[in-house]
């Protein structure tokens, strides 16, 4: 039986002709790409924030330039650059250390790194905004009260910064989720890629792109609901002090 004649329910179901399980697994991979990119972005973004607020001029300027470039260049270009450029870069690194060329790195890694590098530039701005919102007098008071740097971070800075940073971080998470679709061009079997493959092999592009849209909508709206829950919890906790 030709796939073009099958009913949408069969095509999207779990039977031998159905793409349902593959699409769901792909949605999970999309989630994993976005989460890994978010984690990379948070670590690198925090480092960038520290650099941005550093007293060393050259360090602050380098971090600002990084942000300017990564926020001004299309995400697609970053993904393409890492995907096409990484094997050559790895090969020259390996040549420097005298070992044979390791071949191309896994698509998952380059994809997460590309989205994460962009995410870091946006997260650094968010963290900096959050830190600037803590009045310097509070830090001075904490120092005067004899708090160590870790206690200051835990008791004074983190609660206030987290509270301010959570809503914009939620926005960045949404962008990471949607940008993860760009990783499909590297061949990684995430949601965009699998819907493209399914559309090609069944010749039902409308059906499968619509299904992918629904799955993306589930991911984005479920995660925004989750973020809103954490925000209201956080507010209650902050108000209950």
């Amino acid at each position, binding site marked *: 039986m030709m796939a073009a004649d099958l009913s949408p329910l069969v095509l999207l179901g779990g039977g031998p002709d159905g793409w349902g399980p593959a699409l769901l697994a792909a949605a999970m991979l999309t989630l994993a790409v976005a989460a890994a990119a978010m984690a990379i972005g948070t670590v690198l973004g925090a480092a960038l924030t520290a650099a941005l607020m550093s007293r060393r001029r050259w360090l602050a300027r380098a971090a600002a330039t990084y942000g300017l470039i990564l926020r001004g260049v299309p995400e697609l270009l970053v993904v*393409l*650059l890492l995907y096409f450029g990484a094997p050559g870069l790895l090969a020259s690194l390996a040549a420097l250390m005298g070992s044979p060329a390791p071949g191309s790195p896994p698509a998952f890694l380059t994809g997460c790194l590309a989205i994460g590098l962009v995410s870091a530039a946006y997260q650094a701005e968010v963290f900096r905004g959050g830190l600037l919102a803590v009045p310097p007098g509070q830090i001075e008071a904490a120092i005067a009260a004899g708090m160590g740097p870790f206690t200051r971070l835990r008791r004074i800075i983190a609660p206030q910064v987290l509270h301010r940073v959570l809503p914009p971080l939620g926005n960045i998470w949404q962008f990471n989720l949607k940008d993860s679709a760009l990783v499909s061009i590297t061949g990684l079997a995430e949601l965009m890629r699998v819907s493209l493959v399914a559309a090609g092999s069944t010749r039902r*592009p409308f059906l499968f792109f619509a299904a992918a849209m629904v799955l993306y909508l589930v991911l984005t709206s479920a995660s925004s609901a989750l973020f809103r829950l954490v925000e209201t919890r956080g507010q209650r906790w902050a108000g209950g002090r």
Partner: protein
Amino acid sequence: MNEEIAFLTVTALAIVRALPVTVVLALTSALGASAVAVALVAAQATRVGRPLAQVWIFVFRGTPLLLQLFMVYYGLAAVGPIRHGLLWPLFRDPLFCAFAAMTCCCSAYIAEVLRAAWQAIPPGQVEAAQACGMSRWTRVRRVIAPQMLRLALPAYGNELVMLIKSTSLASTITVLDVTGVAQTLIAHSYRTLEVFCLAAAVYLGLTAGLTALLRRIERNLERGTGR
């Protein structure tokens, strides 16, 4: 060394020749998206239009632009009434499909920006305008629109920068814009880093130019308020 310079010059020329495609796509979709966004905000003030506008915004903000592009270019082509209808010459053209998808997608984001600006206008002003006997259209023209323009401009500018960057996705549906030409050049020369850096420089120039322009407009607008 000479060969390197010759390669860079040829590459840069090829990329610059693709610049009009990127600029035209960005300009037309910016205009289209802004018009649709205004319609969406206006629709949200009516009882019938409100849920429709909300669904539009929910769908286009919640899914990746890449998927929307593929839906318009490949998905709609498989739908009978479009394939055999009067609009087929339009939907056969990848550049038009890119324009259509970007207009829909960016209109949703811009509508949210405009709505936020609308809500930031103190309701007392609108009530005062009503009390003065201004009609609805006069209120929009004299009280609401000028303030919305000023309030929305920074966020609107961010959306336009995003829009310029997302024009690069059109290369995935065979449009030969800056990114598309860059990919073709890499396929021929295998010089990834040089070609992508040149393309990145073009986008950086565009986004930086737009940011500078917007900042100048913002300053001009603020001069009128005495702040």
